């Protein structure tokens, strides 16, 4: 990938609000904030990329709502990796000279919808053969991965808890986080059992929220006088399965492929990554992904996390926003892995700031089914 493309602005809609909010509004709020952050006008946007399960024809609805008429539309949806894939598409379109300024947006008001109707909008449906076995989709699928992992490597259930505990330590440092209190292994085990080995506190939050990114060429950013830009050094995508019957190995994922590809594109390896943001819908996710990306040997990531290496003060700060387990999880968390990477690289992460010149973001969609790895640098 030629890497002359940058993230020039970001916007976030708050996770919490007292008033009823609609998805269009949280998305628009994040988009407007991102354009202001990038020092551009909405009318400068000529490409729109969005994925949400709560708006019909979302690129069209959002473009009209923002009063813009983009000439490049992308509503690629493959779950929580979608917004990371949008970055890859935006880079390609900018490098091809097809577009100048891309707006990537995600939003959901799951918590508002849950309060208003008692049910929350699903972002995906179980494959038919799974649905008829009466699972708690998608929790059961990730629970099967966790069960297999604990069995295969003969490691304790405490390693799953360690992921939620580390997330709570970061969440305590993030004023925007839904969960600010520190968790213990005992509290996690005392939360309701959902699908063995998972308890409620092994699962991500249900929140509102939205995020947006403004992407353009380095040259364009320079011409606008933008100083605080983040370079997109690599993006790699893959899918190896949809449902669990076709997942090749429950303890090793498509991140093997996206990690290797992304590091090759960027010309550096895991040792040179200063911070990682891994989509943590469930506690097993960061364990498997850290191993597949090459940060830990197989079977070792649970111990690595339990030893505190990814917590505040650790050598590999991970999910520094608090992640989907402690910060926010509005249906899909993918865009937040980019937003937090950018915040860290720009030195805007407040109390949770870590020294970072390079960052890795990893999105997961479906049931470990789509993967997207992004490397960012300043």
């Amino acid at each position, binding site marked *: 990938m030629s890497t002359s493309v940058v993230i020039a602005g970001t916007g976030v809609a708050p996770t919490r609000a007292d008033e009823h909010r609609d998805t269009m509004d949280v998305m628009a709020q994040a988009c407007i904030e991102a354009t202001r952050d990038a020092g551009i006008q909405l009318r400068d946007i000529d490409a729109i990329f969005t994925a949400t399960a709560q708006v019909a024809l979302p690129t069209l609805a959002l473009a009209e709502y923002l009063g813009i008429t983009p000439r490049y539309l992308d509503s690629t949806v493959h779950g929580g990796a979608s917004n990371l894939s949008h970055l890859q598409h935006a880079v390609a379109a900018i490098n091809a000279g097809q577009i100048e300024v891309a707006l990537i947006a995600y939003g959901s008001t799951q918590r508002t919808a849950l309060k208003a109707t008692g049910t929350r909008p699903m972002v995906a449906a179980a494959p038919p*053969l*799974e649905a008829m*076995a009466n*699972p708690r989709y998608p929790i059961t699928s990730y629970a*099967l991965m966790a069960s297999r992992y604990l069995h295969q490597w003969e490691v304790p259930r405490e390693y799953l808890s360690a992921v939620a505990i580390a997330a709570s330590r970061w969440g305590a440092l993030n004023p925007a986080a839904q969960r600010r209190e520190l968790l213990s292994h005992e509290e996690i085990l005392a939360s309701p*059992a959902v699908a*063995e080995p998972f308890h409620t506190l092994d699962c991500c939050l249900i929140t509102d929220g939205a995020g947006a990114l403004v992407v353009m060429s380095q040259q364009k950013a320079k011409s606008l006088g933008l100083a605080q830009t983040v370079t997109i050094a690599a993006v790699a995508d893959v899918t190896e399965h949809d449902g*669990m*019957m076709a997942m090749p190995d429950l303890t090793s994922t498509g991140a093997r492929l996206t990690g290797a590809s992304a590091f090759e594109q960027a010309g550096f390896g895991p040792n040179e990554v200063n911070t990682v943001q891994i989509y943590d819908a469930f506690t097993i996710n960061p364990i498997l992904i850290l191993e597949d990306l090459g940060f830990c040997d197989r079977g070792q990531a649970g111990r690595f996390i339990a030893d505190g290496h990814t917590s505040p003060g650790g050598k590999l700060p991970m999910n520094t926003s608090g992640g989907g387990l402690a910060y926010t999880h509005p249906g899909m968390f993918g865009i937040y892995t980019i937003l937090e990477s950018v915040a860290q690289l720009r030195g805007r992460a407040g109390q949770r700031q870590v020294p970072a010149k390079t960052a890795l973001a990893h999105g997961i969609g479906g049931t470990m089914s789509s993967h997207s790895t992004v490397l960012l640098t300043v």
Partner: protein
Amino acid sequence: MNMNKHLRHYLGRAAAGELVFPRCEECAAVFMPPRAACPACGTDALGWTPVGGAQGTIYSISRHSNEGSVALCEFEVLNTGTRFYGQLVGPGNQQAQIGQPVELTLAECTVSGMDAVDQGQLIPSIKLVEN
């Protein structure tokens, strides 16, 4: 959603009391779930192979409070690395462990409101092999 003609065929055979898995007529791959093309060689020349009474082992399992257990199982007949996902039915399902032997079986679907499967219709499932 995501229903397809191969799946309808598979479910129809099960409803009639017959357990079959998809089998590639070119390379003899036996795989799950049913698809439009062979995941091993890519051909669309696909047929079916009888698998009634097939023996396997539990590869992973998740127990749900009050709602039974879901297991992902390895079967020798599945010769391309895919596995079978289903409800673990019958005695012992709440105590089952990874590595325990299982057998493919037919059991009544407990879920309502699905396309192509009625509640109570026979669907492929898994039961523990009694020692």
